[in-house]
């Protein structure tokens, strides 16, 4: 088990990876990736029971993770590589022709750690429910995690999934919403009235927790709490408050950095704010 300081170092290195990957191909989504670096570190290095060395798609006997907001693939790829799913050198191939690190995650490209494609928004909660139901049929008591965006909940399928999971007591599912409050066209509350997420999910029959998603200790504690709430008859939702672009001052809380690559000068500025802790790839 890693201590807080070690986990924070991993998250910082993941942020460096994200910036270098996106700068290198001059394409990708840094904002949400940086905001979720702490979560991915917590999940893969502490919370989840995952087996990188023997990765199998069916995920029997281990926890499973589904990224519904496929555009933040860079942070997931970095976490997977740093956790040992594949060599960190491969991070340099993001979005290049023939790479397993597709612009949005793909099972088709055989990247260990990825079980389903995502990118077209709104589908991942349903896919995670399917995996959770299969675990129940298989008598596997491990958990299924999924990550969503607060802009993504504008997709109707999220609410189809939320209604189904609540009605059917899919209580081995822990879904997380990255509640950074911004999306491409502006503030989520202005774009389509994304407010009161906690109340919305409570009314759909979920158990709902909230926390600061950029404070490692709080995040670890709350994820443990989520696990304690599992297997009690209700699906579990964690509404996680984060800052888009967290860790790089000029990107923080700025929707302009949702899907824009930093140029070399901007990257140097950004990297100067993030210590190289584990060694760049």
């Amino acid at each position, binding site marked *: 088990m890693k201590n807080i300081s070690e986990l924070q170092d991993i998250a910082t290195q993941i942020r460096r990876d994200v910036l270098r990957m996106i700068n290198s191909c001059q394409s990708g989504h840094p904002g949400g990736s940086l905001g979720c670096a702490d979560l991915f570190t917590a999940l893969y290095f502490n919370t989840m029971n995952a087996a990188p060395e023997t990765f199998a*798609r*069916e*995920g*029997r006997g281990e926890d499973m993770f*589904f990224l519904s907001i496929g555009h933040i693939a860079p942070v997931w790829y970095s976490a997977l590589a740093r956790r040992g799913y594949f060599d960190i050198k491969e991070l340099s191939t993001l979005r290049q022709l023939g790479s397993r690190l597709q612009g949005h995650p*793909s*099972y*088709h490209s055989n990247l260990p750690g990825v*079980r*389903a*494609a*995502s*990118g*077209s928004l*709104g*589908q*991942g909660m*349903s*896919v*995670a*429910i*399917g*995996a*959770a*139901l*299969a*675990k129940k*049929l*298989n008598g596997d008591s491990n958990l299924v995690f999924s990550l969503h965006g607060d802009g993504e909940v504008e997709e*109707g*399928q999220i609410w*189809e*999934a939320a*209604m*189904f999971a609540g*009605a*059917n007591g899919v209580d081995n599912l822990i879904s997380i919403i990255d509640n950074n409050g911004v999306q491409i066209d502006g503030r989520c509350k202005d774009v389509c009235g994304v407010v009161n997420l906690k109340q919305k999910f409570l009314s759909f029959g979920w158990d709902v927790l909230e926390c600061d998603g950029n404070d490692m200790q709080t995040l670890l504690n709350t994820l443990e709490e989520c696990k304690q709430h599992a297997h009690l008859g209700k699906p579990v939702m964690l509404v996680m408050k984060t800052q888009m672009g967290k860790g790089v001052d000029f990107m923080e809380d700025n929707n302009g950095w949702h899907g824009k690559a930093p140029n070399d000068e901007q990257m140097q500025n950004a990297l100067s704010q993030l210590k190289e802790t584990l060694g760049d790839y």
Partner: protein
Amino acid sequence: MKEYKILGEKDTRSGFAEGLLEAGRENENVVALCADLTPSVRMDLFAKEFPERFFQTGIAESNMVSIASGMALSGKVAFVGSFAAFSTGRTYDQIRQSVAYSDCNVKIAGSHAGITLGEDGATHQILEDIGLMRMMPNMVVINPCDFNQTKQATLAAARYNGPVYLRYGRPKVPVFIPEDMPFEIGKAITLNEGKDVSIFATGHLVWQALEACKQLEAEGINAEIINIHTIKPLDGKAVLNSVQKTGCAVSCEEHMYNGGLGDAIAQLLVRNHPAPMEFVGIDDEFGQSGKPMELMKHYHLMAEDIVLAAKKAINRK
């Protein structure tokens, strides 16, 4: 010509029901999901015998397809069922991303396909579904012709590892395929050998093609009738061998010209063996309410229409 006896009148959806039940008995990993149409799309037999493996998703087809994908990637053989209009058209993006592109072992069951859905009208009569599913990489498309073949096709789909679209219908139609006739995905069935024209038919139009064959025979025309139950992958060898022999072709389907069986055959012929070809199908229009057979006549999908198309193709040789 070879005689095919009518063994009874049954709906193809009931063939699906029996096939799914048998698949469930054969493999405990088979699961079924339905969006509030369980008796209509005939998942009822499976749901009754295997309640723990049946999942009611409510009227939420997109969610249903994506849940099936999650179950499939966890090792299940997941059947999803709705009317073909909803199980393909409404969920195209979910099938594309979560099923076909994600290599998931999901079987999309499309009941009430085509014009013979009847009285409910154009909103429910999808005529584009073969095209939609055919365009998708990694997707197998099967449109069986009667009760017995639908049962066989359902079992074959369950045994096949990968995404399948299984299209079947609502009304009672003649049962004429013998129960013991072999069925193999991607392998066309020659129902009658002939030398003057190749008639390729799928779904409900296979029986009409056999009726047309009789009428043509009475006029001294010897038609080859080939049942293309699997539209993708198309049995190209069977199609080319036949057209090389007869010199012309007719395609017959309860579907738009665009994207359907005819399109698939025409593409193959143009590339390999250009020959005169006629299409029996629906020409770029929506359907409407009516009785199934009234609609078949109105949209020129009957045996006499196939006879006219065959003669036209022969005259163009």
